[in-house]
């Protein structure tokens, strides 16, 4: 027997607690390898792939790498704690720390090498499907051929080798800190009854309330600003929720004596009180993982599914043209020849002016003004209330989905524009938000003035830009017209962006969210497995003390099935609590991110949620079976 065989026997003995860890390791290797093989694929040199996509791939690879590092690091420290007793004993028998570290290194390398081997092997088989999926998502004309690059294999192997090397090296410090005499002490230590502070309970509740309130009220424009805010409050609230609020709740439940002391509830609650505190950090982590997965996949999936509706809402006109090179008759002819039936048609003029109040105009020196009549026309099409503008007044129109549909008032300011050395100053109080017309450079921020003012400005020789928009009964045919218009603009050496339409926006959202969905599903699965195996570890670490407890209860006359029931109920709670809290969190997350939808779309979210639930149940049943099996093995 040698040190190496000692390490090997250890792994074999702990194989049941290693299995969850092993599975997640394999999956981390698999995902890392798949993205690496895409990164090393010669096809990336092709023009087909935009630079952003390749950058995105690097980003995903970095996330997977970081994740692997944190997860495997966490698992290792959990294992070390699990085996404190064994390792401490070996140290007492004279094994120096250096040798313990070497043993752990060998164990890591053995498990790691196997995981890397299996991960790469399944990756090679799976890469065909992975590439197919990528080709589909990116709408490539031909699927990416399978290419076994040496580089990706080397990268994967060397990355994980370094990772295990570094982690073994880190384990040295945690081992040195540990006092070996602790091993010989009474193993069941008296635990103090956990207490809670009412202030922390309040902090938790208030933080969660603030986070939720913000996520229900924040619009797209405010999202980057409030995002950090919301996250911080949510993290704080959840963390103290587990460490403090949970104990407060159990303390409250204890005040209900009759119900509380019925059956095995007594054991369950007294255990749970310690359990929740000891496991607070793990529950917190798993909750955050669950929230992230559900929110990311839910949002991406929703937008992917809803991209047609979102496109239609963001660009309500199937085709819109600014400064058309064609005259009215020519346009009419084109529409007829394509057999399109108009359901709506709008035409108005924009005046182009200059301003010194750039700061009030999103830092743009060019002002685009429309008349009151034009504005009312637009409002009517959107079924919004008409408005009356006074001669000395101006209204800012923020025509984009990033702002909530609303009409706001602010403190009265002045807004000044210049037209050929002449200055015009108006009173600015109202802001009109929401999509009124397709978003062009000229229609994003507009200023509406009274008809009289508009006419005066026009007389002073302000540049006039004609704008028109159409809706058709059969939008799909509009695509031909849109392409034709773009050609017209190009042939006149004008900006083709002057013509846009619903279809373009719809395609934009699909192209944006399909890769996002794809990536979020992969990373989501990784997180899911990690969350599951963290719980699995935790349970297998606590198993010995659990067993002692159950054996004691068994001796005191509790039947074995009932004792097992207590264990099962604990496992159930450990799985269910983070899932429930994470679901609620992600639900508010979804409302936060559904600004472009003007309503949360629950059907698609529920589908994602349901799939997660089913997967979680599978993981739960597997865990339950393993734990009961492990308990049974030692009882005999």
């Amino acid at each position: 027997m040698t040190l190496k065989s000692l390490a090997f026997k250890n792994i074999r003995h702990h194989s049941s607690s290693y299995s969850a860890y092993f599975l997640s390791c394999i999956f981390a290797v698999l995902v890392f390898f798949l993205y690496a093989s895409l990164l090393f694929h010669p096809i990336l040199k092709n023009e087909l792939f935009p630079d952003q996509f390749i950058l995105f791939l690097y980003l995903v690879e970095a996330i997977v790498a970081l994740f692997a590092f944190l997860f495997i690091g966490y698992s290792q420290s959990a294992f070390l704690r699990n085996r404190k007793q064994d390792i401490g004993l070996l140290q007492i028998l004279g094994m120096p720390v250096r040798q313990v570290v070497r043993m752990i290194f060998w164990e890591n390398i053995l498990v790691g090498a196997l995981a890397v081997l299996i991960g790469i092997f399944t990756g090679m088989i799976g890469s065909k499907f992975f590439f197919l999926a990528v080709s589909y998502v990116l709408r490539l004309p031909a699927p990416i051929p399978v290419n076994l690059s040496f580089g990706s294999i080397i990268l994967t192997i060397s990355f994980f080798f370094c990772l295990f090397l570094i982690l073994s090296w880190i384990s040295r410090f945690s081992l040195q800190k540990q006092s070996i005499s602790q091993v010989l002490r009474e193993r069941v230590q008296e635990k103090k009854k956990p207490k809670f502070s009412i202030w922390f309970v309040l902090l938790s509740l208030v933080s969660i309330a603030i986070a939720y309130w913000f996520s229900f009220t924040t619009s797209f424009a405010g999202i980057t600003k409030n995002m950090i805010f919301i996250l911080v409050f949510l993290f704080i609230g959840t963390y103290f929720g587990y460490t403090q609020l949970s104990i407060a709740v159990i303390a409250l439940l204890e005040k209900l004596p009759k119900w509380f002391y019925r059956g095995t509830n007594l054991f369950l609650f007294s255990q749970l009180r310690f359990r929740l505190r000891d496991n607070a950090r793990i529950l917190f982590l798993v909750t955050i993982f669950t929230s992230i997965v559900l929110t990311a996949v839910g949002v991406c999936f929703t937008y992917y599914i809803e991209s047609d509706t979102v496109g239609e809402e963001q660009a309500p006109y199937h085709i819109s043209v600014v400064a058309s090179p064609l005259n009215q008759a020519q346009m009419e002819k084109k529409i007829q020849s394509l057999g399109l039936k108009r359901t709506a048609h709008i035409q108005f003029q924009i005046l182009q002016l200059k301003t010194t109040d750039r700061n009030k105009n999103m830092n743009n020196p060019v002002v685009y003004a429309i008349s009151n009549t034009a504005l009312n026309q637009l409002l009517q099409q959107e079924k919004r209330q008409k408005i009356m503008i006074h001669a000395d007044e101006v209204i800012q129109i923020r025509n984009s989905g990033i702002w909530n549909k609303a009409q706001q008032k602010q403190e009265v300011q002045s807004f000044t524009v210049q037209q050929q050395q002449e200055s015009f100053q108006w009173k600015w109080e109202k802001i009109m938000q929401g999509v009124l017309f397709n978003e062009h450079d000229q229609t994003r921020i507009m200023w509406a003035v009274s008809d009289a003012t508009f006419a005066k400005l026009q007389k002073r020789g302000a540049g006039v830009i004609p704008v028109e928009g159409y809706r058709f009964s059969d939008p799909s045919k509009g695509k031909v017209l849109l392409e034709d218009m773009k050609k017209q603009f190009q042939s006149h050496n004008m900006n083709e962006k002057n013509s846009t339409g619903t279809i373009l926006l719809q395609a934009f959202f699909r192209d944006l969210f399909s890769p996002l969905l794809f990536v979020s599903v992969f990373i989501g699965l990784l997180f899911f497995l990690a969350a599951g195996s963290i719980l699995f570890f935790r349970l297998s670490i606590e198993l010995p003390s659990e067993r002692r407890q159950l054996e004691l209860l068994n001796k005191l006359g509790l039947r074995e099935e009932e004792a097992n029931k207590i264990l099962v109920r604990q496992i159930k709670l450990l799985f269910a609590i983070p899932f429930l809290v994470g679901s609620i969190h992600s639900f508010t997350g979804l409302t936060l991110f559904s600004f472009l939808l003007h309503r949360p779309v629950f059907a698609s979210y529920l589908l994602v949620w349901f799939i997660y639930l089913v997967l979680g149940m599978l993981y739960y049943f597997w865990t339950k079976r393993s734990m009961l099996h492990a308990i049974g093995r030692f009882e005999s």
Partner: protein
Amino acid sequence: MILEAKNLSKIYGGSSPGAFYKALDQFNLTINEGEFVGIMGPSGSGKSTLLQILGTIETPSSGELVMDGENVVAMKQTQLADFRREKLGFIFQDFQLLDSLSIKENMLVPLVLNKKSNQEMEERVKQVAAYLGIEAILSQRPYEVSGGQKQRAAAARALIHQPSLVLADEPTGNLDSKSAKALMELLVDLNHQEQTTILMVTHDPVTASYCDRILFIQDGRLLNEIYQGDRRADFYDQILLVQSSLGGELYDTKIPRF
């Protein structure tokens, strides 16, 4: 002389003021080669603390400790590990066998750590297993054998590398009287035949009566010391006498069984 301890003290919880506890107080002890020494005393009197300090698992707060001519207090962690590995053997109340290994492999651990050759390992296992009568269970796992067998396996592990000093903390604490007697007879035999020095903590007067000498400790201080005479039964009576003079209610005196 194999061990000499001077003014050993151990203070727990010194880091937080007000909450420290003197588990060992100016303790002096000398053990000669080949002696079989017992330590008795009420619960919490510092017996295990003393044993752990002598076993270099715990460091004393102050005092000197020389074992086998080496100044143990001055050693670094790695040196201490080497020292334990070569010179010390441990037997614990709760056996402390590794579930991942078979009985034989458990016995081999000290030899593996000492990097002995395969041939030597096999020879030693055969020898020690025969001596302790555990040949039949060598391939079994610790959770598959009885408590007495487990403790014999643990003793085998403590002896297999022929240490200069064997430290045992309540080795019979988890055994029935028959297994306890068998184990004690083995230890006495070993002590006589191989001149192995043994230091044992125990609560049980019967177990203690196998020793050459017994130290009584209370509140971390040496109270009394008695020596084995010609007859073990007399020694046992003497132990009971000392115990009752120290406040017998602290001990669970069992009916003697010879």
